[in-house]
């Protein structure tokens, strides 16, 4: 009886769930299965139990990669979202042609193919003759080897990342801003609220669900960072991570193990270790939301 009642709901989600089950769930379960095996894609998989997991957790690279990852995520996600929010509010405060111009300008970095962005930034960061070092030279400062000095590499990466992700998150937040009815702002103005108060008491609460999405998705994707550090360090499957592994991240190591050493079982195990970490952090986000009544 009750199934009848809910049938329309199940029917509506059926297309998504079927495709999802086939092309996401099944591969994930496959991957999970292979993580307990030694497999190179061709030979029959050989069961090795937890050996893959053990091997990865004790390896020195794992600790380095996780350390880099946590530092990177802790800085990039909040910074990126603050910048995106700021840009969205900024763009929103203009009207007409100028609003369009600024929105398009800020989104442009997202449009670039990853390799192109990386090449451009490698030139900008180049020691002695890169753009940044030339500017430093005008002020008499010595040249900094941004992409090869282990002290600066991570921050150089974060700058590039924010440069791209700010535009990406900005358009999402803008869509949310446009959904806020103008009457609310009118009413607040009539009540005597100034710009700041309007932002804090109307904009941010009304943006709740959108901000939650941007922060959570930002967190999940930052944990899986791969193409920017890979391209900025000129990595290949046989040699990746940059100098002293300063830009080694878990997904890079996974790709290396999968396509470089052709050890899919290990790559899968690594993947699931990362997944567990992401799940814990995301669950914390959802838990916070429920507890604080956000979004």
């Amino acid at each position: 009886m009750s199934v009848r009642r809910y049938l329309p709901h199940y029917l509506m989600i059926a297309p998504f769930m079927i495709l999802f089950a086939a092309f996401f769930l099944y591969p994930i379960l496959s991957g999970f299965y292979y993580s307990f095996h030694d497999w190179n894609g061709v030979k029959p998989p050989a069961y090795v139990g937890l050996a893959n997991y053990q091997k990865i957790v004790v390896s020195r690279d794992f600790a380095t990669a996780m350390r880099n990852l946590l530092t990177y995520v802790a800085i990039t996600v909040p910074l990126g979202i603050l910048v995106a929010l700021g840009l969205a509010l900024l763009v929103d405060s203009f009207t007409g042609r100028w609003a369009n111009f600024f929105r398009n300008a800020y989104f442009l970095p997202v449009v670039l193919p990853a390799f192109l962005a990386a090449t451009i930034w490698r030139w900008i960061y180049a020691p002695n003759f890169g753009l940044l070092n030339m500017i430093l030279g005008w002020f008499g400062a010595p040249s900094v080897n941004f992409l090869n000095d282990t002290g600066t590499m991570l921050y150089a990466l974060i700058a590039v990342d924010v440069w791209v992700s700010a535009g990406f998150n900005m358009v999402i937040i803008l869509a949310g801003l446009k959904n806020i009815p103008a009457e609310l702002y009118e009413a607040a103005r009539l009540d005597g609220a100034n710009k700041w108060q309007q932002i804090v008491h109307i904009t941010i609460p009304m943006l709740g669900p959108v901000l939650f999405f941007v922060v959570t998705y930002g967190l999940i994707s930052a944990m899986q960072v791969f193409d920017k550090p890979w391209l900025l360090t000129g990595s290949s499957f046989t040699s990746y991570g940059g100098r002293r592994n300063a830009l080694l991240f878990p997904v890079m190591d996974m790709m290396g193990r999968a396509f470089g050493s052709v050890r899919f079982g290990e790559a899968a195990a690594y993947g699931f270790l990362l997944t567990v970490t992401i799940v814990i952090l995301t669950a914390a986000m959802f838990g916070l939301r429920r507890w604080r009544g956000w979004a």
Partner: protein
Amino acid sequence: MKTLDKLRFGVAGLAVLFALGTSGPAVAEDITLQYWVYSDFGQGDALALQQEFIKEFTAKHPGVTIEIVGKGDDDLTAGQVAGAASGNLPDVFMNAQSVGAQLVEIGALDNMYSKWMAMPEEFRAQFDQDALKSCMPKPDELYCLPYTGFGSLLFRNLTVLEKAGIDTTKPPATWDEWFAQMKQVKDAGMFAIPDETLVFNSIAEIYATSGGTDSWGFDWANRKTRIDPATMTKVLQKFVDMKPLGSGTSRNDQATKDLFISNQLAFHTIGPWVNPTYEEAAKASGLKYDFVLIPGDEAGKTGGIRSYEIVGVAPGPHADLAFEFAAYITEKAQMARWAKLLSRYNANAAAMADPDVAALPLIKVSVDAAHGAMDVAAPYFVDSVPSCYNSTVIDIASATADGSSTPEEGAKEMISQLNDCLAK
């Protein structure tokens, strides 16, 4: 409903059987071979020549089509790995020697030894013997035909050297001479050389000035590195010495090429692929440069590395035909045409000795460079090199150059870490 379906299936099945049955002894089998090449060879003039080879071959083999596909380096490997997993391997393909072991492991490479021995002696003698040996991990195994390759060259910016007061008519004959020239360049206010500790291949190139193939590479039987501590200590000292003279960029960076072209960098140790860029610069902005051998410690010894790209054949029903095609494109006539077109060195020694080919300046130097060079990761095709190996070498070389340990300590540390890496 169910019965109707069964009926449908039955009819379809019969139809298929019928079709198969009546096709009988039709025309000679129509076979399509998939031929994967490096992206360079899949574009422009190189592609045109490859397509000519294909046309000539298929003219002699009616019913055969060959599809040529170009891919970038990493993509070739990734595609072959995925293809092996799903049974969609390319039939003939190129790749680097250094990934040979992985390709054998996933079953992408056929052992061509018996087909090889069936070829006439004069064909087999055409190949550079060193290159060939690297395709044969065991006496009765041949996994590839060596194809193109390179030996490292020393590109010299003659304008910079002249400005530093160096006589450019004689290239430096020994390391000491070369190092003295580097210091002179630095004193004249310009960069001498890229930072050679940033990339595995450039570290190897400098190592080769003191060491050789025997004191580099892997001892797979014992899973240890063959790097000799005394040689490595000497080489690490060289990195320390070169540090203040360098540009801070790696030999592969665009910035390095820019510095060279704008007459601010004297020496560039790299392979011949930068030549088109420098040639163009010579025309556009008057760059004066040449390429010579990298000098070793003693006169007559050269540094630098050599590496080959290979042509491999996948096992399976088309392996014989694929081998025939591979043999066709690697034999002297085709390789000579190839060399003349691209002005680049390849592993067919007979083609290299062809007078027209040997007259090309880049080829002449490359042949000498390859002969004196060190194999970058020998022996090949035995086992895959774990990624910790290259990164350990790079890390410790850069750390030592930075001064965080003495060359002696650095060498000892490197070797012990490399042995740990290989032991896993």
